[in-house]
């Protein structure tokens, strides 16, 4: 199939529709407003629901209601707006509701800036809402991967009955790249049934109840342990990562999203200087591919592990957990919308090597 040129935000919206999503609720915020704009035109054409909500809080609660009513549903926002969605995300996890949340990250904290950043890693992977919960978090590094992962995001959300987050930095949302639509579109009619959904009893069954309240401590503990068991299954089965030239490398860069592309360029610069460098790129940042990273880092050839982020250092904590002390871990990053250059990244590796 011929390649088409797509902007990231529009591609993710189209990919959602092709993944059988027929329900979108959202609120405008830069740098992701092309998603609701695209949805406002194309979702009704696909026979679906588009609604611009009065706030991100309302949007995520509309997602909650629609998901509870059995719809394949999503919302999108950017960092400050995703902060507002945390309450609803926690409730969706508690009530075990599927749904996809797109975060096109910008600089923070607070109002920060509208330029690309990765400062929401902790929020995405540790949870910004209350209680013991997890999200599956995909961190695509190019627009082809964005559209490829979108269908999987909805499928995993339904399979595990939990929200899935697509964690993009603003660069991925705003740039254009040639892509291919590899998977055939999914019809909402072909999606698996959701017998738990509140669609009306027709007085033929007991009422379905969507709920996250378990007032009895024992019952709430049982609920939490059951969720934890589910999260363990996700950890076992859903880790995704990619390696580039990591076999026999002296330097291992670890990065997700846009910085992974910078790290590839930095590895090329080091190669010209006679230093073999590779890139380990987590595609899921939760569950994090700790063991796979450990296997790469423990190779005899590896002298240093260099984490690259568009933040002041958040994923580096997971890198340290994965490497677990077998090799030194260092960090290079810029925040607030400043993107490190490949030369700066390469220099950080040289510094870590003591050269």
């Amino acid at each position: 199939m011929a390649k088409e040129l797509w902007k990231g935000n529009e591609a993710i919206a189209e990919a959602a529709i092709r993944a059988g999503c027929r329900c979108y609720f959202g609120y405008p915020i830069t740098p992701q407003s092309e998603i609701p704009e695209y949805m406002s035109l194309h979702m009704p054409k696909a026979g679906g629901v588009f609604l611009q909500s009065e706030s991100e809080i309302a949007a995520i609660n509309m997602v909650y209601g629609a998901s509870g009513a059995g719809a394949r549903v999503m919302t999108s926002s950017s960092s400050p707006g995703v902060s507002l969605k945390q309450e609803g995300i926690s409730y969706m996890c508690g009530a075990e509701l599927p749904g996809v949340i797109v975060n096109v990250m910008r600089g923070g904290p607070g109002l920060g800036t509208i330029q690309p950043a990765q400062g929401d890693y902790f929020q995405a992977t540790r949870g910004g809402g209350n209680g013991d919960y997890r999200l599956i978090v995909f961190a695509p590094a190019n627009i082809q991967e964005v559209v490829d992962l979108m269908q999987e995001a909805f499928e995993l959300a339904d399979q595990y009955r939990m929200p899935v987050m697509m964690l993009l930095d603003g660069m991925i949302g705003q740039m254009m790249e040639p892509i291919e639509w590899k998977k055939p579109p999914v019809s909402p009619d072909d999606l698996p049934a959701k017998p738990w959904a509140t669609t009306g009893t027709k007085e033929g069954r007991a009422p379905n109840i969507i709920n996250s309240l378990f007032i009895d401590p024992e019952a709430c503990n049982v609920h939490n342990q059951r969720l934890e068991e589910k999260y363990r299954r996700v950890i076992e089965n859903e880790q995704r990562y990619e390696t580039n030239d990591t076999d026999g490398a002296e330097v291992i860069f670890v990065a997700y999203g846009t910085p992974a592309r910078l790290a590839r360029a930095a590895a090329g610069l080091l190669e010209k200087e006679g230093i073999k460098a590779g890139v380990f790129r987590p595609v899921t940042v939760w569950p994090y591919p700790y063991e796979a990273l450990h296997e790469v880092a423990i190779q005899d050839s590896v002298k240093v592990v260099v984490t690259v982020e568009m933040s002041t250092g958040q994923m580096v904590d997971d890198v340290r957990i994965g490497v677990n002390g077998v090799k030194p871990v260092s960090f290079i990053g810029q925040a607030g919308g400043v993107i490190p250059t490949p030369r700066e990244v390469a220099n950080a590796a040289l510094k870590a090597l003591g050269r």
Partner: protein
Amino acid sequence: MAIVYQRSKGLTDVETHYCPGCTHGIIHRLVAETLEELDILGKTIGVAPVGCSVFAYDYFNCDMQEAAHGRAPAVATGIKRVLPDKVVFTYQGDGDLAAIGTGEITHAAMRGENITTIFVNNAIYGMTGGQMAPTTLVGQRATTAPLGREKSHAGSPIRIAELLATLDGAAYIERVTVTSPANVMRAKRAIRKAFELQLEGRGFTMIEVLSTCPTNWGLTPVKALEWLNENMIPVFPLGVYKDITKEEA
């Protein structure tokens, strides 16, 4: 022997947790009877709030969703937009609807969201133990207003029925109470009308029901009914605030 009165099919046989004398039980029954009489129990999805009626999902005999505090109108919007042929209602207290959830209820009404809201106003936070609500009367004592609500400090009570009636999307707004058999009958008629208008696709409908909280008001159930009649109704006058069917006539 003829049965003249029994539990509505719209209620489950779960024993409610409401305090003695609380009027939530009456209001639940009125909603349940309406759903049964209109034969819509099997196509209704209710949304429970956070507050005293948080367990409403266990009491109504239809599909239910439990919402975060104040978010019931947003949750109901999500349900209704996905299932436009179903009947969707929210059941919310004054803390839930008139404080933390003012944004959600206002915009649901503004959009003319085709849902019905049962707004139970007892002028206090019941579940959390008698704190001041946005609907607490000036001078009324609460655990966070121990000397009584002071207008200069906390303002005056918010009148939600009047507020929402200004919005074009609101099809029917009425304030009722359940302090006497006659008032209960009036409340029932109002609730039924709201659901009927929803079935006709007319837009947002809300019935505000003035309700008692003997426990947190520190009154006996009978005294609480009297207190409501004497003190709440002058501040929150009963009546129809919006009726799209009259405007068209």
